[in-house]
């Protein structure tokens, strides 16, 4: 009794079954050779089920840099600008976060205020500052509406603050602002300092 109705239901069931193998957003799907996909060495942002790092806490592959160390990779070589960057960073590391007056007195921007450097500073400002401090440094960024207490760069209190002050505030935070030293390289912080000086004039 294998008539056409049976055949038909079989066919319908088969197609429906095949189509219902839809996408589960939590599933990566079939993998052919996972042992070739997964790194044998520990990758910084990868954590595999059942094969986690046994040395580091929580099976993480990354570790914090040793306290008090400075990454030297960007500062090797004879370039005088690199040397100036290194000198400023080493000096800045010795200034505690609550001593902004030391930064004001001691730190000096190794970068000259050339149009290229200011343009580079603008780029970094747009990436790291603009959403709070606003396009023109008026404290009117989109996030500032929710965060509150973002100052105006051109205000009487801030329009004259110097290189070291701005660098210190980016690195360690001030008032409502939290430290951003972990996110922005010291070279890029100096570029931002240049651009903030431009905004102070506006």
């Amino acid at each position, binding site marked *: 009794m294998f*008539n*056409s*109705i049976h*055949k*038909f239901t079989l*066919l319908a069931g*088969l*197609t*429906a079954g*095949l*189509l219902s*193998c*839809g*996408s589960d*957003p*939590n*599933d*990566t*799907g*079939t*993998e*052919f*050779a996972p042992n*070739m*996909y*997964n*790194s*044998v060495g520990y*990758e*910084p*942002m*990868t*954590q595999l089920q059942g094969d986690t790092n046994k040395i580091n806490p*929580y099976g*993480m592959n990354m570790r914090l840099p040793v306290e008090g160390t400075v990454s030297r990779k960007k500062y090797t070589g004879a370039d005088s600008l690199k040397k100036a960057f290194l000198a400023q960073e080493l000096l800045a590391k010795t200034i505690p976060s609550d001593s902004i007056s030391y930064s004001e007195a001691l730190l000096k921007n190794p970068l000259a205020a050339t149009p290229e450097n200011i343009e580079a500073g603008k780029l970094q400002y*747009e*990436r*790291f500052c603009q*959403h709070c401090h606003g396009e023109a440094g008026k*404290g009117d960024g*989109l*996030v500032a*509406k*929710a*965060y*509150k*207490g*973002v*100052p*105006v760069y*051109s*205000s*009487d*209190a801030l329009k004259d603050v110097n290189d070291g002050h701005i660098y210190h505030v980016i690195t360690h935070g001030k*008032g*409502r602002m*939290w*430290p951003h030293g*972990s*996110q922005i390289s010291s070279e890029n912080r100096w570029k931002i300092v240049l651009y903030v000086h431009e905004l102070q004039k506006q």
Partner: protein
Amino acid sequence: MFCKKLTLVKFLFSFLFLLASTTAMLAQDAAEGETLFKNNCAACHNTSDETLVGPGLKGVTGRRPIEWIVKWVHNPQAVIASGDKYANDLYNKFNKAAMTPYPNFSEAQIKGIVAYIDAANAAPAAPAAGAAPAAGAAAPTAQSSGGMMEVLLVGLLIIMVIVLIALLSIVNSLSKLAKAEQEEGKSFFDTISENAKSLAANSAVKTGIIVLVFLLGGKATIDAAYGVGIHQGYAPEQPIKFSHKLHAGDNQINCNYCHTGVYEGKGANVPSANICMNCHNAIKRESPEIQKIYKALEKDEPIQWVRVHNLPDLAYFNHSQHTNVGGLECKNCHGEIEKMEVVEQRSSLTMGWCIDCHRQTDVNAKGNAYYDKLVEVHNKDSKTPLKVQNIGGLECSKCHY
């Protein structure tokens, strides 16, 4: 008598004039005060009684005499140091956060600011600027339109087959009627099943069905085989319901703010919790999802985000080469992240997909001395611009080693 009247009128006039001029002066002061307040004070103080960073300044003239306010604005630390009780209480109430001193403000300017604060409170209360409630965390279920299309097509096919069978049986019974061979006691459905049986016996229909099954099955098999190892559409649930739409879309926070390595390193980096805290020390502190960040920080535990884009280890990829050197934008590969509640892998990340782009894309050689000689050599014997494939973008060992 007349003289006296004149004096009185004079007096009245001068009084009126004085009154008018003082109000005008006050208004002018308040106008200047408004600019000063907005530029210097509004970051931390409200004109209402709502606390922002520092206290709300509504009715400040009632709380403190103007001389005290002037002294305070000129140098808050000196007032605190002088042992003033009110100042010290205030200082302690706000966690010893010192106000910025404004020694350059004249007394008239400070009075102007105070006049503006009073004027702002005298004015009919403006409707509170509605902080729009954050969009619900309801993540839209990602339904691929392709799947819908297939279901629709199969449904239509099934309906067509049923209609065909019904029509055939009607034709059959009609022809029987025409022959006047009436069979009694036979229902419509019996006729249909009878006809279906005869249809199944038909060899052409049999072959048709078999071919159809083969075709459909073949297509499904090929599709599934091509999909092996491709995670396109993968949108795993994350431990914290973080919305890229809210952060990168609505608030336009740059990708680089959190993904700190994207212009500098191989990986883009998943932000550590201290970067979340740069904003969430103040914003949406009560949200249960934000509380998860606080817990992770308290326990010094990592947040176990689920990685979405998993390039196989056998292929090398470096973000900085593409973003910084090549000048690609994030969305070129990741799609419209700023519109995604839950991040999904949009591109297939197959080798064909990489190669396609390497064949089509011009090298971003502008202002990059590294490419100068390569461009020069290339332009000698070619009229097309230097593409990625011309500098080894298709070499196996560029990515596989």
